[in-house]
């Protein structure tokens, strides 16, 4: 119990530092751009949308939230480990009783905390914009939050993938590979239909393997229904979270495995 407590303390310290570093790197400045985008949309979209400003604010707000989050996950995520190695601060960290797994998990949780702050503030911004255009409390203000939760879950997966690639590759290549995973993750239905429609057994197995290996991000995309006031049910959300946690565990375990064998000399 004592050992576990100590370990959690070390992970929390690294996570806190990763969060502070992200704030110092002005990662949260994207919120300014987001606020400007939403304010502009709330004020001007009514003129252009033929009475559909509420739907468009939800679509625009949640899509921007996902897009900004993806950029933060990828570009900050791939630098989490690389920067420590480049600055050689990794030596001082590992000179202390910190394992490589704890280091990676701490870094990961730090960025997840940054993303959480980002997503919650953005969600608040979308809610305020909805209240502004509706002239009062709107049912969408409540019903968008399950979709926001799923966006956050998607970003958590992507951060894990970015960390995995960065544990053995250069930042540029890691960013590219993570971006590909994001794209292919949204084409998972096509992978599945390819797997079932191909004639050859090997090809069928290959695409089926790819379908299960890559994260199924399309299942976490609930922005469009949210704009119509639809929310996923509790069963769907809990299954999606469970899937994400399991996938993240696999990705972080693989990253730790690779990172543990890495020689910094």
């Amino acid at each position, binding site marked *: 119990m004592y050992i576990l407590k100590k370990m959690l303390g070390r992970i929390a310290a690294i996570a806190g530092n990763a969060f502070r570093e992200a704030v110092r790197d002005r990662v949260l400045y994207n919120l300014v751009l987001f606020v400007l985008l939403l304010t502009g949309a709330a004020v001007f979209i009514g003129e252009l949308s*033929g009475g*559909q400003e509420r*739907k468009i604010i939800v*679509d*625009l707000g949640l899509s921007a939230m*996902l897009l900004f989050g993806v950029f933060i996950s990828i570009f900050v995520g791939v630098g989490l480990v690389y920067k420590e190695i480049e600055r050689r601060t990794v030596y001082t960290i590992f000179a202390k009783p910190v394992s490589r797994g704890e280091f990676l998990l701490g870094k990961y949780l730090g960025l997840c905390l940054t993303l959480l702050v980002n997503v919650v503030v953005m969600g608040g911004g979308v809610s305020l914009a909805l209240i502004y255009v509706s002239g009062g409390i709107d049912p969408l203000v409540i019903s968008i939050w399950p979709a926001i939760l799923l966006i956050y879950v998607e970003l958590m997966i992507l951060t894990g993938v970015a960390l995995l690639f960065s544990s053995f590759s250069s930042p540029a290549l890691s960013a590219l590979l993570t971006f590909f995973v*994001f794209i292919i993750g949204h084409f998972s239905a096509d992978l599945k239909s390819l797997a079932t429609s191909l004639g050859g057994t090997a090809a069928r197995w290959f695409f089926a393997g790819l379908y299960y290996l890559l994260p199924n991000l*399309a299942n976490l995309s609930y*922005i469009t229904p949210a704009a119509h006031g639809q929310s996923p049910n509790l069963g769907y959300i809990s299954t999606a979270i469970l899937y994400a946690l399991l996938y993240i565990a696999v990705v972080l375990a693989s990253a730790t495995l690779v990172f543990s064998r890495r020689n910094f000399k």
Partner: protein
Amino acid sequence: MKHRFSKSDVLLALITLIGLAGVVGLSRLIDARQPATLAGGTDDQLYLSGSTVKRVSIGFNGLAADWYWMRSLQYVGRKILKSGQGLQLDNLGTLNLKLLAPLLDTATTLDPEFMEPYEYAAIVLPGIDINEATRITKKGITANPNSWRLYQHLGYIYWQQRDYEAARETYREGAKIPGAPAWMEAMQARMAAEGGSRDTAREIYRRMFEQSDDPKVKEMARTRLLQLQSLDERDALRRLMNGYKAQMGKCPATWLELAPALRVLKVPTDTNGAPFDPAGVAYVLLPDKCDLETDPKSKVPSN
């Protein structure tokens, strides 16, 4: 520490400002000299089909649908402005809106639950391409079988085509959907009994005005309601004129000659005794034809 601007700072700022001014000037010059084909003289084609856009939109399909929806509105609005005529949304056949159907089709493929493009397709498209209007609305019904409003739109398309039997059947199907208002059932009966009457038209536009969220559609429905009211008023005024002619042996030369009869009917008039149309503009008397018409300045369409 005071920061002093050096000569090179000033020079660079000047280059920036003059350069920007030059860019603006040249852009305006290029815009003015642009060939008609580039300046929007012809419509561009949509490069991607709805299903392709949906495939590549990777989770942003709702936003892409909004984009296509707003593009549809801008496309129609730009064409109306360019025509310089006060055209109604349901009467845009002369504007060559050949991109409207693909734009609305793409918007509804990207977000099949997005209702407004279906409404727009039902109201604007019949005047341009009736087959596309019907196809897109039916596509909406397939994607949203529990939406009675799509049946209302399809019924409106059939009613406009004077296919009252198809309209009746559509309203009947729509009335069966849970949550459909009682007037859908009443509309079915009305279509069967008097599909082509003004009262049916009034009911259709009244319901359209009540249900729509789109200000332009509301405006169109309101104008059509004013027009129907004006048609009734003009019929009543013609009867008055015919009565006057039968009594006096000639048509009235001015509205003042009909003033006693108009007073009895409590018709509001201007200082010359001319009755107002529903938009508040006086009707124009045509003494030679023993008839009347709406003032061209009025918002009420003549026919």
